[in-house]
C-alpha cells in the first residue's frame, strides 16, 4: 500500500446557503434570549415585580407618551415591561429545557429499549406510545394543573410526562436501524455487554437525531407553557411568564396593543429561533452520521 495521503475531512452535508443562514440566525436568537434570561435582570435597573399604579400602561419607546425609565412601557399594574419580558425569558427557557430533559429521559429510554430488544418489550413500548398519542396533551395538562394547583415544577412534570412520544418514536426507529449495523455486531463479537452496546454503540449514533427532536420538543414545550399560562393554569402570578403576560394584557389590547404584542413577538421569535437551530442541526448531522 502506498503512503497514505493527508486525510481531509469533508463537511458532512452540503447544506444550502439559506439553511446555513437560518442556522446562524437561530443560534443568534437563542443566544440572545439565553443571555437575557441569565443576566438581563441583573443589568436592568427596573424590578419585574414592583407595582406603580400611577404609571399604568405606559407605551413603549416608539410610541407617543413614553417614559425613558420604561423602554418597553409598563403593564396594567405599572410594572416595567422590559424587566418582566426578560424575567419571562428565564421562565420559558427553564420550562423548555427541563421539559426536554424529563421527556427525553422517558422517551429515549423507552424507545431505545423497544427498538433494541424488540419482541415483547417492543410491544409494550409501542402500546405506551399509542396510548400516549391518544391522550390530548392540553386537556390532560389542564386537568392535572387544575386538580393539583399550578406551579413551575408541576408544569414541567406534566409536560415532561406528556411530550416524550416523539423521542420514543425516533429513538425506537433509529435504534432498529443501528442495531443491525456491522459495528454493533462487531462489538458483540468483541465481547461487549448489552449495557455497553446500548450506551456506547447505540446512543452516540442516534444522538444527532435525538438532538433535532429535542429542539422541536423544546419549542413545543415553551408554546404549551404559554398556552397553559394564558389559560391561567401555568405559572402562577406574579411570576412573569410570556403566556401569562399575554393573558393579563388581553383586556387592554384594544387601547394598548403592545401589552400582548411584545410578549407575543418575543414568544414567536424564540420558538422560531429554536426551530431554526433544529433545522440547522438536522442539515449538519441528520442523515450523514448513521452510515
Amino acid at each position, binding site marked *: *500500500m502506498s*503512503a*497514505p495521503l493527508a*486525510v481531509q*475531512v469533508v463537511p458532512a452535508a452540503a447544506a444550502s446557503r439559506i439553511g446555513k443562514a437560518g442556522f446562524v440566525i437561530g443560534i443568534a436568537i437563542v443566544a440572545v434570549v439565553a443571555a437575557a434570561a441569565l443576566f438581563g435582570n441583573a443589568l436592568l435597573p427596573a424590578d419585574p415585580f414592583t407595582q406603580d399604579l400611577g404609571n399604568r400602561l405606559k407605551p413603549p419607546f416608539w410610541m407617543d407618551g413614553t417614559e425613558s425609565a420604561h423602554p418597553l412601557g409598563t403593564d396594567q399594574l405599572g410594572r416595567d415591561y422590559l424587566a418582566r419580558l426578560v424575567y419571562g425569558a428565564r421562565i420559558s427557557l427553564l420550562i423548555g429545557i427541563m421539559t426536554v430533559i424529563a421527556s427525553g429521559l422517558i422517551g429515549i429510554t423507552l424507545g431505545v429499549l423497544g427498538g433494541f430488544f*424488540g*419482541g415483547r418489550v417492543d410491544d409494550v413500548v409501542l402500546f405506551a406510545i399509542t396510548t400516549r398519542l391518544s391522550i390530548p396533551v392540553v386537556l390532560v395538562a389542564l386537568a392535572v394543573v387544575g386538580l393539583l394547583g399550578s406551579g413551575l415544577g408541576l408544569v414541567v412534570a406534566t409536560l415532561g410526562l406528556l411530550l416524550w412520544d416523539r423521542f420514543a418514536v425516533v429513538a425506537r426507529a433509529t435504534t432498529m436501524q443501528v442495531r443491525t*449495523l*456491522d*459495528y454493533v*455486531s*462487531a*462489538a*458483540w*463479537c*468483541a*465481547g*461487549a*455487554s448489552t449495557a*455497553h452496546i446500548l450506551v*456506547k*454503540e447505540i446512543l*452516540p*449514533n442516534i*444522538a444527532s437525531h435525538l438532538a433535532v427532536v429535542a429542539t422541536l420538543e423544546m419549542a413545543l414545550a415553551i408554546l404549551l407553557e404559554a398556552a397553559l399560562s394564558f389559560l391561567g393554569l401555568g405559572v402562577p402570578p406574579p411570576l412573569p411568564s410570556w403566556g401569562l403576560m399575554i393573558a393579563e394584557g388581553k383586556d387592554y389590547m384594544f387601547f394598548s396593543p403592545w401589552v400582548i404584542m411584545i410578549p407575543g413577538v418575543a414568544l414567536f421569535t424564540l420558538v422560531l429561533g429554536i426551530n431554526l437551530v433544529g433545522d440547522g442541526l438536522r442539515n449538519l448531522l441528520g442523515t450523514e*452520521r*448513521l*452510515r
Partner: protein
Amino acid sequence: MSALLDIEDLEVTFGRTAAVRGASLRVEKGETHCLVGESGCGKSVTALAMMNLLARGGHRSARRMTFAGIDLLSLPDRAMARIRGNRMSMIFQEPMTSLNPAYTVGSQMAEVLTRHKGASRAAALDRAVELMGRVGITAPQMRLGQFPHQLSGGLRQRVMIAMALMCDPELLVADEPTTALDVTVQAQILRLLASLKREFGLSILLITHDLGIVARVADRVSVMYAGEVVERAPAAELFRAPQHPYTRGLLSCVPVPGRVRRDRPLGSIPGTVPAIAPGFAGCAFRSRCAHAIEVCEHDIPRRPAGGAHDYLCQLLPRERAEPQPA
C-alpha cells in the same frame, strides 16, 4: 493433535427453515481453515452459532461444540462474552460499517483490551499502536485520533484486523474479509492474514465464496452446501481430486488460464440453493446434480477418499476431476 475448534453435527434453525443441518467442522491449532460455499449455504450462520450470536429466532444444537477444550454449548452467556473478542475474535465483510462512527479508532481499539484484560488505557493505546504497525498501517500514532470516516476501506479492514488481534486470540473468524475490497488491497490483506498466522500462531477460520482465495491461503477446506459440509479435505487434495459433484461444479466455474478452453463456455451450476425445511432427507444437491439417482433421496453416507479427505455423496471416489458434463 487436539482440535482448537471442534463442532460436530451442528444444527441451526430459524423457525421452519433449517439453516445448518448437521455440519461438522474441525479447526486445528495454527491452521487456516476455509469454509466455502455459495450465498445462503450457512457459512456465516455456522460461525455466528459458534459464537452464540445468532439473530433473533435462531436456535442451535449440536452433538459437540468445543473451543480449546471448553464446551461452548453449556457455557453461560457471561463466560461466552469473556471469550468473544478475547480468545476468539471476528472480522467482517464490510469494513466501511464495522467500525463505530462515533469514536476514534484508538478508543475503539483500546476498549477491547481494557474490557478483557483490565489494561490501563495508556497501555491499551500502546498496544494499539504496536499492532497497527504490525498490520501495515503507516503513522499509527496519527490514526489513533482519527475517526473511521477518515480512513479508506483497506485501512479500515486493517484496523479491524488489528483490533481483532488486541487480546492475542487463538482463533480468528474472518467472514469474507476481502469481498468489499478491491483486488490489490484484497491480495495485501490475504498476505497479511497469512503472515499473522505464522507470527502469532493463530488459527483462522476463513469464510469465503472465492475459490481463488481458498487456493492461496487455505490449509484445509470444508465445502458447505445447503447447511451441510459436503466435502472436507486438505486444500491441495481438494483442488487435485475434488469428489463431491458440487465441489467439482464450483471448481469448474473458476477460469484457470491455460486449463480452461476459451472456445467452451465456463462451467456453471444450474439453479439455486433450495430452502430446506426440517425433516428433509437425502442429498440436498440432487435437484441440481447431473449424477442424481434414486439412492440420493435417502440418507447419504460420508465416504472417505483417503487421508483426511471425505465427502458426502453416493458416487465412488475418483482420482481426477472429470470435465463437467455439458
